């Protein structure tokens, strides 16, 4: 457990490690949220990742801190999925919670949402049959791209290509191009 450094140096090294974690924190969160889709769970995994990283650091040198951190986070998300397959919690859940005190949506917000939804629906209509299905399965059934690939007998990479096309279509459509 003891590192060869003198106490003072060890403190500095420790501070540096904490610093690395702080810099990486936002990205660790981004990685976790991409995998678990739940704000609170992602925060929890980020915390646990930092704790485990510090523990590992105390036990010996870490060559590639960034890679190591994401590996820890990855394993934690895997453990989570083993325990229970969680349902995707869409971003709107968070919006709801923020809203509960007033417990209502203003007419302006509603109108804005409605217009957005109409544009979204029009853009959705423009997608090909296969694009629509893939998009639906990813968003509403919460299948991963690999699972969708198995379903249609195409590669995960191919499904992601489709998703990228869909995202481009929406981006262009919504930004008025």
């Amino acid at each position, binding site marked *: 457990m003891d590192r060869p450094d003198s106490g003072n140096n060890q403190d500095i090294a420790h501070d540096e490690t904490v610093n690395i974690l702080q810099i990486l924190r936002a*990205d660790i969160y*981004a*990685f976790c949220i*991409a*995998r678990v*889709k739940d704000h609170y769970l992602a925060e929890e995994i980020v915390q646990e990742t930092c704790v485990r990283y510090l523990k590992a650091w105390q036990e010996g040198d870490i060559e590639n801190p*960034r*890679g190591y951190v*994401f*590996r820890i*986070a*990855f394993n934690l998300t895997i453990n989570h999925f083993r325990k229970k397959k969680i349902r995707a919690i*869409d*971003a*709107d859940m968070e*919006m*709801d919670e923020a*809203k*509960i005190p007033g*417990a*209502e*949506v203003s007419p302006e*917000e*509603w109108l804005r*949402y*409605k217009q*957005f*939804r*109409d544009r*979204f*629906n029009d853009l*959705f*209509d423009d997608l090909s*049959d296969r694009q*629509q*299905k893939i*998009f*639906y399965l*990813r*968003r*509403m*059934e919460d*299948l*991963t*791209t*690999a699972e969708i690939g198995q379903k249609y007998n195409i590669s*995960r990479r191919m*499904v*992601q*290509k489709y*998703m*990228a*096309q869909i*995202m*481009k279509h*929406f*981006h262009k459509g*919504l*930004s008025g*191009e």
Partner: protein
Amino acid sequence: MGMNMFKDRKKRQNSDFPEAAYEWLALLEAGDITPEEFESYLEWRDSDPCHVKAMEELQKEWREICKVPVPQPRAWSGVRHSQNNSKGRNWGFAGFIAQLQSRVIYRAGMALALIGIIVGAGLYQYISSVTEIEKTRVYSSARAEMKTITLDDGSTVHLNAQSRITVNYTGNERNITLEQGEALFEVSHNPVRPFLVYAGNGKVQAIGTQFNVKLMPDFNVMVTLVEGVIRITQNMGKHEGLARILKIPGEMASLRPFLDTDKDMAQENLPEIKITQHSSNPFQDVLSWREGKLVFQGQRLDNVLYEINRHSNHRILLKSKKAIDMPVYAVFNAGDWRGALSAIVKSYPVKAVQVSNDETHLVAEDE
């Protein structure tokens, strides 16, 4: 892999939006991104400030997109969306069935069959004189009968005996009118489509919550919050209605009837929403009806009899004016009218006279 995993196409659009951003977003949203992939993403993102900007813009927009429910793919629905001009198409009954099919088809096809059977059994009356996206349905429970109904959006309504609700869902609102009796609502979350319950002259609005609404025979309304937050407004015709918010579980709001606005205003019989902390455990008394218990804590005898009668096929009528105001503190089993009757006769100056197989009168003891 590495930062060249997705190459920026040389032919860029007019804007300098990096084409690879879409592929990276697709990977981030794949649901199963690996640490290596994520690292190569970071490498790409941090290699150019315009990548950072592009991803921020794209992810922000994507979060907005994720708030909108994805319609069913046309290849599955058998109906071409483009032929359906209605934007609210997924909110209607057909949309519900379509959505239900697509959601459960892989996991629980049985659920659909079950719902089919329930529908076939005529659990509800379906009024067809409505448009594609706007349908009204009536659900009612008979005397001595309780029902649980799952609505199109996944919300649940538990109907107490002898109760009736009208359900009218539109694209913008979920409207329910409690026309008679009592119901417990478990509301499914939807911030842009408020769940509104009308009872008497009260309106209750909820987002993701549970509450109990009781319409008394005299049109008094009692609303009890079980969970979440609800907003209660009182309809006052052309005058601005009162509004109160309930936040603490167990809080109960009572509303008086307010039928003739102008007359009531003139007489200064102003409406009010009275809020009381009914109970720290709303399940114990207000919701006891769900467990088949009728709990009374000082209610008038006539109201108590109304409650007892709702739960049995035998009617007990109070024929004595003397006992009408007497408070009742008791717990009865729903449906056990004999037990309730004998307890009432023992405690109040009334006697029971059975006038027919299904009717008993309570008359003053000295008559």
